[in-house]
């Protein structure tokens, strides 16, 4: 199954979850998402999502200059972002539980 469509709906949630514990820059966030098993996520989608969450006030951003290369832009979660994460996590858990129940019922009948 193509998980790209599924990802689109939960990318905000996934990105918030990734930066909740530790601030991260774009590629870092992408790598964490991939190592968490979301291998299909496109980097531009992640960077765009970071920007949108920042514009919505769910993230803060700051630049870390580097002497030896291009500077990196770090994102951290805000209290508003934590609220959003909490709400959306609950939504997701309800939703996924419902889908799981639905699927396991079908499996049992099969």
């Amino acid at each position, binding site marked *: 199954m193509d998980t790209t469509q599924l990802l689109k709906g939960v*990318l905000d949630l996934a990105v918030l979850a990734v930066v909740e514990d530790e601030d991260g*820059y*774009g*590629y*870092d966030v*992408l*790598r964490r998402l991939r190592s968490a098993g979301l291998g299909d996520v*496109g*980097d*531009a*989608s*992640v*960077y*765009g*999502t970071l*920007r*949108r969450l*920042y*514009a919505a006030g769910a993230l803060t*951003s700051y*630049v870390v200059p*580097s002497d*030896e*290369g*291009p*500077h*990196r*832009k770090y994102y951290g979660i805000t209290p508003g972002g934590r609220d959003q994460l909490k709400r959306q996590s609950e939504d997701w858990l309800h939703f996924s539980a419902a889908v799981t129940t639905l699927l396991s019922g079908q499996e049992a009948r099969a």
Partner: protein
Amino acid sequence: MNDTMKLEVRGEVDAFVAEVERRLADLTAEERDELVGGLRADLSERLADHDGPEPAEQVLGDPASYAVELRTAAGFAPVMAPRRERRPVALVVGELLDAARRTWVELVDKVPGSPRGFLESLQPAWWVLRAWVAWMVLQDMAHPYVSYGVGWALVLALLVVGSVQLGRGRGAIARVRGHAAARLVVIGLNVLAVCLLPPMVDKARWSTADQVLDDMYSEGAGEELPGLSYDGVQLTNLFPYDAQGRPLTGVQLFTADGRAVSVDDSLAEEDGSEDGIEEDGMSWVYPWLSNGSPRFNVFPLPVGPGDADLWERDPDAWSSPTPPRLPAFPFAAAPEVVLPDGGPAVEDSADVPAR
């Protein structure tokens, strides 16, 4: 995490970021910075992580689709709207103009008696009139008067042709009519022509009046003042003296071809009450007589009061209580004069009639 690892930014990354940035040109500088601010570092790191044999371009992929993905995820329109701010302005203006025209037509159509047809019939007259206004404005810029020379007539003809073609929607000049900007320009010019019409008519009237006055003056200059005049001023009298400087009376003056040098007999002058001839009012010169017919070429001419009511000489002046009298000479005696050869050529000038 390789925060401390030295990141080498490759030319491919710079080119890629530039291409992506180009597709974000419609965003504000802040939005754009937010999107591509960390992009060079991120992409460079991704290239560094990649250990396949593919060239960098292939790993980075297509910047156009990358930009679409980036824009969509960031909550912007997937593709930059091409020149989105220019077309709508022209369209909006055009629609406004169309709406205004429709409203006008509806308004006019509400008036009974189909005035629209009447007004439309008048349009050609307006086309010519506005060309004339433009012509007058050009003249005004060229010189302070109005010229009716061949060159200017040609200019007027060209302006009329242009204006009528524009009005009819024909010819090269009318090809721009559909554009909103051109329509605005034409409307502006029409309004300007309406505003300039009264002053230009006024100017034309004044210039015509000036021309008439000029003609009158030039005629006047060619025309001689009637009667005797000196330095452009008509004279009412002369006071002759002989060579010894004695006043002469009854001196008849003729031109070389024998015409009498007469004063303009219609002239009267305000009386200075000199000689007590008239206390206030006008005094007139009265002619000498030759076999009963008046002569105004004999000097000095007697001066007397006129008929105050009729504004003319009193026909019974000589029998009135205050008959005309010879006026006083300006000097009792003038300087003596001689010819270079010693004496007056005509010796009998001493024969002065008694005063």
